[in-house]
């Protein structure tokens, strides 16, 4: 939906609800980006994948609370910290992979709960 269309045809509450809806609908893609970059890193260190992993988790951590998605913050923070370390060190600690995959599943579960509408309604 273009902003011009939205402003012409929707009110403030509807616009806000639409922005929340777009955020919610985009979450699986963000999780998938983290998952895909993690799987690249599992095969060996790749700077681009490390950066994508770190930045995607970091951005989600910062953005989620503004959309009422507070439950996403903790798992996104854990992934951000691991991703930052891997990116800055230029290497992946393979011994951490299982734990990181578990953290990613925690994030995915939190996303699914949020996407089901249990929290983060724009009207809150």
């Amino acid at each position, binding site marked *: 939906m273009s902003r011009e269309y939205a402003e012409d045809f929707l009110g403030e509450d509807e616009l806000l609800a639409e*922005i929340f809806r*777009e*955020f919610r609908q985009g979450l699986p893609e963000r999780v998938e980006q983290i998952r895909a970059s993690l799987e690249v890193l599992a095969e060996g260190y790749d700077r681009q994948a490390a*950066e994508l992993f770190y930045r995607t988790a*970091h951005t989600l951590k910062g*953005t989620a609370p*503004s*959309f009422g998605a507070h439950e996403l913050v903790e798992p996104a923070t854990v992934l951000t910290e691991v991703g930052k370390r891997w990116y800055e060190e230029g290497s992946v600690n393979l011994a951490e992979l299982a734990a990181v995959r578990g953290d990613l599943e925690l994030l995915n579960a939190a996303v699914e709960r949020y996407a089901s509408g249990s929290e983060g309604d724009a009207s809150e």
Partner: protein
Amino acid sequence: MTSSFQVVLIDDDPDLRKLVQLTLEFTAGWEVTTAANGGEGIEAIRRVKPDVAVVDFMMPEMDGYEVCRRLKQDPETADIPVVFLTARKELDEVKVAEIGARGVVVKPFEPGELAERLLELCGGEV
């Protein structure tokens, strides 16, 4: 708050850009121009000459520090207040001041409180 107050917002997260834009436009009546990266943002700032530039700190290719540094080096944009948006609580406040930024809004923030915080940081100039 005046309705002609101009903001350029630079953030690589499209959802946050839309949320902040909507909030500032509807709650504060400000005019908001958005950009997805530092390069686009600097162009927008040169074009719009906003009352404040709100710049995400951590962006790919050009981070907030670099955006601010370039703005401060250009006589046409040097006086435009720059406020960083950041999820990094450890952001060095001294460095922020040294580089000429007006201050920091730490993510997460309540969108509805952003206008007030920007006013505080800009010393009521807006």
